């Protein structure tokens, strides 16, 4: 592998890690507040469809982004209604949302565009364009740092940078604000939060809606940044990889960034090479695809550091006993 290949790999790693990162941070907010969310995939898919569809109709990627986020937040609200208001099973609700998104996107897409569930290809302002960071051209001559800056870091859509900024923002909100402290508390011990006179329901709904917003960004990036339009099932398990990254990251924002970059790199490697030779053994591409899931199982098994979820996760809160 020469230096150029490495640069290209890192470049696509950043691209492919971005949807994972948004979805992973989305799950972080939700699960830190005690609401399990295996519906990240569905919310992302719905957002991808609606952002692409609305962008195709209006010609504006930004209006598409709003529509995508709105769709994702509606699904998040359904999840909140089921798991907070009606104290239903959060996992079952997540499964339902995944199917709802998988079915509705194709059904509505087919009815609107008659392209078998796809949206028309997006061009021009209907897609997010790549930005060139300042001095990218003049710095590109510097060895190592130059290509890293001008080719890996520069030249992405604004959503990639937004995703990178979302990491410190999430860290700040969760660990340096009153809201964040309460949100984490509600995922560990909701009764204590309730006793302090703070609304458990309100906090959990806030977390679930933030989760919807971030999944919306993930989906919009997928359809209007990474590719040019929506195709059936385009999230392709990324919501579950994000969930895996969340566990891998032990529910922490900075770890989430590294986990998503790692899984993004695996994806980039799998896309570029049909098979990879490591220490004389040939790894098939399917192994690379399965690796995020295998790593997550290993982490969950507690052989490499223990992943301990928020204590009240998955438990509906019943006020008076």
């Amino acid at each position: 592998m020469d230096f150029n290949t490495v640069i290209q790999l890192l470049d696509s790693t950043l691209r492919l890690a971005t949807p994972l990162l948004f979805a992973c941070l989305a799950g972080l907010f939700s699960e830190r507040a005690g609401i399990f969310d295996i519906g990240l995939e569905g919310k992302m898919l719905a957002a991808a469809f609606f952002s692409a569809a609305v962008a195709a109709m209006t010609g504006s990627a930004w209006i598409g982004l709003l529509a995508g986020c709105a769709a994702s937040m509606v699904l998040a609200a359904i999840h909140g209604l089921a798991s907070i208001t009606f104290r239903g099973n959060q996992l079952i609700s997540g499964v339902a949302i995944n199917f709802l998104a998988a079915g509705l996107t194709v059904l509505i897409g087919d009815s609107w565009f008659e392209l078998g569930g796809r949206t028309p290809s997006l061009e021009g302002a209907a897609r997010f364009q790549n930005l060139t960071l300042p001095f990218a051209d003049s710095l590109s001559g510097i060895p190592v740092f130059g290509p890293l800056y001008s080719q890996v870091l520069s030249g992405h859509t604004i959503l990639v940078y937004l995703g990178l900024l979302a990491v410190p923002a999430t860290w700040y909100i969760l660990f340096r604000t009153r809201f964040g402290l309460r949100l984490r508390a509600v995922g560990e011990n909701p009764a204590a939060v309730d006793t302090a006179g703070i609304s458990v329901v309100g906090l959990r709904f806030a977390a679930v809606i933030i989760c919807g917003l971030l999944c919306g960004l993930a989906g919009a990036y997928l359809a209007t940044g990474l590719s040019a339009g929506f195709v059936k099932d385009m999230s392709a398990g990324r919501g579950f990889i994000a969930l895996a990254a969340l566990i891998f990251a032990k529910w922490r924002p900075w770890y989430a960034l590294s986990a998503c970059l790692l899984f993004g790199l695996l994806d980039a490697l799998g896309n570029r090479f049909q098979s990879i030779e490591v220490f004389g053994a040939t790894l098939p591409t399917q192994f690379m695809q399965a690796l995020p899931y295998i790593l997550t199982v290993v982490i969950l098994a507690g052989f490499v550091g223990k992943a301990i979820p928020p204590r009240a996760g998955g438990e509906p809160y019943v006020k008076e006993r």
Partner: protein
Amino acid sequence: MDTMPKWADVALIPFINLALALIVSGIVIALIGENPFQAMSIMIKGAVGSAYGWGYTLYYATNFIFTGLAVAVAFHARLFNIGGEGQAALGGLGVALVCMSVPWPHWTLALPATIIGSALFGAAWAAIPAWLQAKRGSHIVITTIMFNFIASALMVYLLVNVLKVPGSMAPETARFAEGTRLPAAASFAGWLGFGKSAPLNVAFFLALACCVGVWVLIWRTRLGYEIRAFGQSEAAAVYAGISPVRIIMITMLISGGLSGMMAVNAVQGEAERLIIDAVQGAGFVGIAVALMGRSHPLGVFLAAILFGILYQGGAELEFEIPAISREMIVVIQALVILFTGALDNMVRTPVERLFLRLRRKAA
């Protein structure tokens, strides 16, 4: 004291949930500019209006009985086995290996072997998540989801690199030999009008036997009692000397085995070869079926028939009204899971209140 009579719990509430799911589905159909009543009648006519329709409806239902029972058994121990998809895929591998490794003279000899093979492979795929849950406390929902993806990658790898017919492009095994082919409906129930194309086969009776078997297991054996006790209260079960590790392992092995046996119907009975994605989402339909059927084998059977009707009717619907794509089934399935599983309390609480008020009036 129960707040409402048993019939309300087992029949009225599922009925209201289903009705709500269908009403919302109807609204979705209306929103894309089609007539929901016409769509409904096409679906029902297409699924149960002819022997041809029944041949497919019952074939799909057979798959869903297996996966539905798998989820239901796990539910009794309060385990959510979401990995039916992967377990059934591995069951397919078991069936294929059994069918291809021995020159079976007759299907009656091959069938017991493929049942064991599929159940063993399905159970083995459930065993690792079960062991991790029992011994290491890893959340079984997450591990079984991960194992679905790992299974899918594994099956693609095996079909593309190992099991494919040499020289062929298609990632599938060769057709199984004559001696392994299960009799289709045309040969044992041709007098009912089933044609040669009907995929319904003798695996349907295996599914019925599994229903009975699960009923006996859960309500008539000591193990079933222990599974239910564990599901009701782990602390109480431990106090009564029931080992959680043993119950989790056994329950998940049974659950995985039932999922795996789906392959007897889909791989041996219908496709007669192992193809990529032989399960086609049936593992997930099992969740909806188990929720609808209240984890009771009779309920699972009825819900599986219902979903069989949905799947076959949905195919007919797409044929008759091209504007409504096949994904409508997925939407209905999602709504059924949502209303019967996640939003159950939305219906249950008002109904319970209603019965309480009626009782107070009567007293």
